[in-house]
């Protein structure tokens, strides 16, 4: 016979009251947690000291592990290369044959690219940066797409600053500890970035979809003019994100919506650059808009 359940208190007053108070505390705890959530919704920077402390305590673990992961990923590839050398050789030769015509196309494209870039005044140099750091981990959450960066307020990182990798934009700093910070990735549902089409400067808004892709919505109504392969860069409208950082490339375009993939993959990017919040001088954006044909 199983022992009687502790949840069934019988006639003991003491046990009954104990159980009752337990439930009162639990419900009170839920209400308290709800209050914390309300604070989080209304003022996302609330409790930043506590959260920053926890972030500082845990980020070094991820950072240490990250280098181990990189090391093992490297050796794994090397061992694989050794064992599959022959088949790989044949495959590479085949790929080379196939790639030759593409190479010629690419050369033509490069010339065109250079001309277009010159037209846009797209500069590759990054003149002012707050700091450079590693992306060390991310939330495993179902809903939010947030990464952990190995630099915090001690390095001058402040909430709101844009973060980019060598290839393109990664996201925006959400909260900071002394030595680590959380970055809201482009693919998060709460991330909105004003972008423009490289081809003709059509303005659009890039919003994360939560599953690793980005939804690009044009600001002008009308037929969808975006095509697969189109590249978007930040437009600098509204400040925060400096202009002309590559953001996304379109993978699927239907008349209703445009799905794009971020150009910088935070899972593979080796280091991230934190930029100061972009505050355009008065009139600069208008001049830029006139410069784009």
């Amino acid at each position, binding site marked *: 016979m199983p022992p009687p359940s502790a949840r069934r208190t019988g006639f003991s007053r003491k046990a009954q009251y104990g159980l009752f108070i337990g439930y009162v505390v639990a419900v009170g705890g839920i209400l308290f947690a709800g*209050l914390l959530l309300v604070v989080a919704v209304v003022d996302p920077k609330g409790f930043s000291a506590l959260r920053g402390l926890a972030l500082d305590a845990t980020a070094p673990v991820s950072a240490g592990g990250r280098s181990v*992961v990189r090391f093992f990923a490297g050796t794994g590839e090397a061992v694989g290369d050794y064992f599959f050398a022959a088949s790989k050789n044949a495959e590479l030769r085949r790929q080379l044959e196939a790639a030759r015509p593409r190479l010629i196309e690419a050369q033509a494209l490069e010339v065109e690219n250079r001309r277009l870039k010159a037209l846009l005044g797209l500069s590759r140099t990054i003149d002012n940066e707050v700091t450079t750091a590693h992306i060390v981990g991310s939330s495993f959450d179902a809903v939010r797409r947030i*990464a952990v960066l190995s630099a915090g307020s001690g390095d001058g990182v402040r909430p709101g600053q844009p973060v980019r990798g060598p290839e393109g934009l990664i996201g925006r700093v959400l909260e900071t500890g002394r030595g680590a910070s959380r970055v809201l990735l482009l693919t998060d549902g709460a991330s909105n970035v004003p972008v423009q089409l490289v081809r003709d400067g059509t303005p659009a808004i890039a919003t994360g979809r939560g*599953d690793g892709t980005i939804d690009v919505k044009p600001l002008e109504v009308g037929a969808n003019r975006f095509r697969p392969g189109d590249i978007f860069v930040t437009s600098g409208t509204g400040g925060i994100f400096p202009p002309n950082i590559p953001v996304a490339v379109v993978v699927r375009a239907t008349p209703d919506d445009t799905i794009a993939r971020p150009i910088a993959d935070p899972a593979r990017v080796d280091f991230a650059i934190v930029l100061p919040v972009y505050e355009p001088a008065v009139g600069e954006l208008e001049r830029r808009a006139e410069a784009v044909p």
Partner: protein
Amino acid sequence: MSRIAGSIADVWLQDVRRQYLPIIATVVACLVDLLPIVVTTPLIPDFGFMVLIAWRLLRPEMWVATTALPLGLFNDLVAGPPLGQSMALWTIVFLAFDVMDARLVWRDYWIDWFAAALAILLYTFGCWYIGWLMGSRINIAVVLPQLGLSILAYPLVARLVLALDRWRLAR
């Protein structure tokens, strides 16, 4: 291991193991979030929550509903959701389990799995709704793969917790 404790230290160690192993296991499961992997597509189950409900369903007498509060706070601090999210949702799930235990006369493996699936469903959509309130406007279909994977992974986690429990109570 010998059935008879050799020293006071052994007794103390067994005592600690018996009392705190479930808590430690849950905390460690929460720390899985610190793994240095950058995920861009939601697929990986929330191990902290899974281990928590596995312990709760295996040993209903062990934890009162309030236990979920500090554990949820820890998960909120480590894993990075808004403060209060796991605290509220985990405690609500525990209260729901208490209600279930009061109504059901017996449970078996399939009912446990069903209850866990309902709990995971509630938790995932709770997270989605809180994200929605915080301005993350994502399609609900995005969380479905992770939801399915979590429900399928529950028996594995339950097995693991069962093994830990056998070790915890071993003499």
